[in-house]
């Protein structure tokens, strides 16, 4: 109980003035300011004798932006429409969808669209405020409760954008001086979260547990030398459940073991593994049957399996609740529009009520996996990356030349003309690691066997057509 209640009442009502403390602090600050006030800088090289006006007139800033090539994909992206079941209409042509993250094919499911329409009729479209300022709609609380319950954790928070979920969650905990051990294949939102945190970042080789252990041990040696500093330095281990860039799973049992031995906190980005791994889609922890309490924070977007927009974090109340006041994207942005929120809740309910959805997807992932590995044509030109159950499969070219990326794009464009939508993953220049170009195939649960064989035959045909002439010349 709050024994100090009467005292609080006192402060909130009556106060005793005495300001000499402030006066002293002010005086102290004044003295410091006078002491440390910077003296004027001496002149600059090359500007001697020039008048102020000359310097200003001479100054030529760089242009704000540099021209971009008109052919860049960012200016010529295909126009899409009506993403329904295993199809998507691209530039007016109905294609098989091997491209978007609609893993469970829930986009445009009638049940989901119905609740979205009802939400517009009840709440309008925008929430017109951040969560703190009347932007918390009851549907947000319902979604959070449902997510926490589904993931068997104490608490959940929902953000209005997938990218910002992960990029905000990390710096809510990791601060300057802390250390983050990170897989080098992590996605760009994790990288941006790390930059914002200003922590020391130690990358280990993709899924290489020996390398991770080595880094942790090196740190342990340093910690023993300086236990005082170590006691103040938080350590985080940040991985993805399924890596978007490679389609590989993280070896969670080994990671949890290392985490426990070295007492680092484990954050997992489950943007892809949520809804796709585990018997009922509860992600990588369910897949490996590891108690979710071992993970400090599970983060995920809702722009994949749930077919909506936004993201969430789940974990203990102790950890998660902190984001309500410290997650930048949570506090300083309007909340997720109610129609998208109920859309995500409805998708989650569908997932929860039909475990077959996930099983169906797993089978399809497995099928495509086997088909890809059987293909001799592909084996001649590509290394196939991505684990059996991953809905994301990458074809990495065996031979990398300067024009490879264009060739891959050409293959994808040709497939598109034949009604198969694939993707060359888009990259930014400052994405630090793992920039290898690839063709990415994304599985969704509604793809049939004949769809997959069509995809494969189209792909083989265009690969041969594209690579043959160059390999003979």
């Amino acid at each position, binding site marked *: 109980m709050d024994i100090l209640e009467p005292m609080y009442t006192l402060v909130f009502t009556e106060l005793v003035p005495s300001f000499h403390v402030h006066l002293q602090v002010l005086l102290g600050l004044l003295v410091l300011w006078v002491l440390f006030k910077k003296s004027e800088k001496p002149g600059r090289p090359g500007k001697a004798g020039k008048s102020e006006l000359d310097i200003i007139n001479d100054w030529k800033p*760089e242009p704000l932006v540099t021209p971009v090539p008109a052919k860049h994909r960012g200016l010529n992206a295909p126009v*899409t429409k009506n993403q329904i079941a295993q199809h998507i209409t691209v530039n007016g042509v109905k294609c098989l969808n091997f491209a978007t993250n609609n893993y469970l094919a829930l986009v445009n499911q009638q049940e989901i*669209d119905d609740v979205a*329409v009802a939400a517009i009729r009840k709440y309008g479209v925008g929430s017109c405020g951040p969560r703190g300022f009347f932007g918390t709609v009851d549907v947000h609380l319902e979604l959070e409760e449902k997510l926490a319950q589904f993931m068997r954790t104490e608490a959940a928070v929902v953000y209005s954008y997938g990218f910002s979920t992960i990029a905000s969650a990390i710096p809510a905990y990791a601060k300057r001086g802390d250390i983050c051990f990170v897989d080098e294949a992590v996605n760009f939102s994790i990288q941006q979260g790390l930059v914002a945190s200003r922590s020391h970042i130690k990358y280990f080789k993709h899924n290489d547990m020996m390398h991770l252990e080595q880094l942790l041990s090196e740190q342990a040696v340093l910690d023993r030398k300086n236990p005082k500093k170590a006691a103040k330095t938080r350590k985080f281990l940040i991985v993805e459940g399924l890596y978007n860039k490679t389609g590989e799973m993280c070896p969670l049992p080994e990671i949890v073991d290392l985490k426990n031995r070295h007492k680092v906190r484990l954050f997992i980005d489950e943007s892809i593994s949520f809804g796709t791994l585990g018997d009922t889609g509860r992600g990588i922890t369910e897949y490996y049957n590891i108690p979710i309490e071992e993970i400090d924070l599970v983060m995920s977007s809702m722009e994949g399996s749930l077919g909506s927009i936004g993201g969430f974090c789940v974990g203990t109340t102790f950890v998660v609740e902190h984001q309500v006041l410290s997650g930048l994207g949570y506090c300083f942005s309007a909340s997720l529009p109610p129609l998208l929120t109920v859309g995500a809740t409805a998708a989650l309910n569908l997932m929860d009520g039909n475990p077959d959805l996930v099983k169906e997807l797993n089978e399809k992932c497995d099928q495509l996996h086997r088909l890809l590995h059987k293909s001799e044509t592909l084996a001649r030109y590509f290394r196939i990356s991505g684990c059996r159950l991953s809905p994301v499969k990458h074809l990495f070219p065996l031979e990398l030349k300067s024009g490879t990326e264009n060739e891959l794009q050409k293959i994808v464009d040709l497939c598109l003309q034949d009604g198969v939508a694939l993707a060359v993953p888009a990259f930014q220049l400052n994405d630090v690691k793992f920039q290898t170009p690839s063709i990415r195939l994304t599985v969704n649960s509604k793809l049939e066997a004949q769809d997959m064989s069509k995809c494969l035959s189209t792909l083989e045909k265009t690969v041969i057509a594209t690579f043959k002439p160059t390999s003979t010349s």
Partner: protein
Amino acid sequence: MKSLDLTSEARMSVEMNGFPAKSDPLPVKNGKKPSTNGHTLNAEIHQNGTLPTPKRAKESFEQVPIYTAIMTYLGFYILMFLGYVNQMFFSPKVARETNREGYTPLYDQFERFYLRYVYRRVKDCWNKPISSVPGAEVVVKERVTHDYGWTFEFTGRETKCLNLGSYNYLGFAESTGKCADDCIKVVEDKHGLGPCSSRHEYGTTEIVQNLEALTAEFLGVEAAVVFGMGFATNALNIPTLLSKGCLVVSDEKNHASLILGLRLSGATCKVFKHNNMKHLEKLLREAVLNGQPDTGLDWRKIVIFVEGIYSMEGSIVHLPEIIALKKKYKAYLYLDEAHSIGALGPRGRGVTDYYGLNPKDVDILMGTFTKSFGSAGGYIAGSKEIVDFIRVNSHAACYASAMSPPVAQQIITSMSIIMGRDGTSEGLRRITQLARNTRYFRRRLHQMGVIIYGSDDSPVIPLLVYLFSKIGAVVRTLADRKIATVGVGFPATPLMEGRIRFCLSAAHTKEQLDYALDTINEIADELGLKYSKKPRDPNPILYETDDLSGVE
């Protein structure tokens, strides 16, 4: 806690402000002619050195009375002290971590203490759940706490409150009408809620392309690109424009998303005092003259970052002076119109419209759709060259989800209405109504003798209550009288400047504003909020009317 007895303070402040009101030296314009923001201004001469001094609406700002200042600090320290004692005796389960023995504590001591033992005392004033459209009125779900703010429970009761808290400037938060109908049609036509893909891959839809074309036209520039979240529009695009060796000159009151974008960019950042043109010029001049501090080399480029309306200050950016400065020092200008787009200017087209400036004088126009358009997302607009650069290099276009089609449709429909494309004068009516509501509400608050900040034309109105404890008291008392408002205190504002913020809307009627004003007047007496020492207008404040729309 609930029933605060602030009578002694109230008495005091009445004494401080109790002199008879004198007549307002400024002309009170309650004329009959139709007016919108940016047309009838109480011009006031600003001393800005050699800079042009454009006509601008009166801005209000008052120093904190010294006694209040002392009380504010003192009250805060006592709160901290009590919190500290409290923490020694009482730490419930949610405040402890299990199964993490031997780990470095997850939180800084002070941060945790502040949130748990200081902020918790007023925690009930934020994150209040609603269960309706955030329109002129909003249904707030009642919560109770049985453990002094550690946890909350719903009572099941719901209260319809007058909504002075949401950013619904033009009243487009609606569940019926053209906007809602159009959005529903988009869902029914199977455009999907989420595109599950980025713009560079398969997230580009015709609806989004139409929105971009319309946005560019609305803003009067060559091109525009839109993103799914306003916050991310800043955080994921600013880093592409700047890098090491670039200098940013940023207003001290800039929004967290701008600051995050700047931090991620690696550029050097200098902060100028809020809306202080002299300080801005000093920084620009020094930057051009002195170059980079270590090498003495010229800066690669200098970019000024400002907002249209500052959401915590209610002030409007001094854009004409900034454009003059930017031209003089060859800097670039990034203008975040999150709160000003739609809400300012005779045609609702933001700050440039308000001042009658050429939007092309601003290099990068950024804004969000979460406020005036009642939707979600953000845009970047400007020359085709700049927008193409963003399309190609934006982190968001490459990695983040493209915009949701129904959300984009809401913006298209509301923007078309603002532009009069629907063949009615509904858009103009809303713009006019907001402008009148704003001036009426602000004048009456001035007349009451409370201290409010910001420009007379700004629909964001911070009312200064100073004391940390009063923020909670005012928010709660207003909530009891069925008025929903938000309070803002440390650390979001300086410790001294706790405030209550009202956001006006075109959806508010004069009767609703009168109810709010009368209530505020009573509370201001009860809780002692009439800090202002400025003379008060003895004449009744009239609500502007005209024949245009029949608004009373």
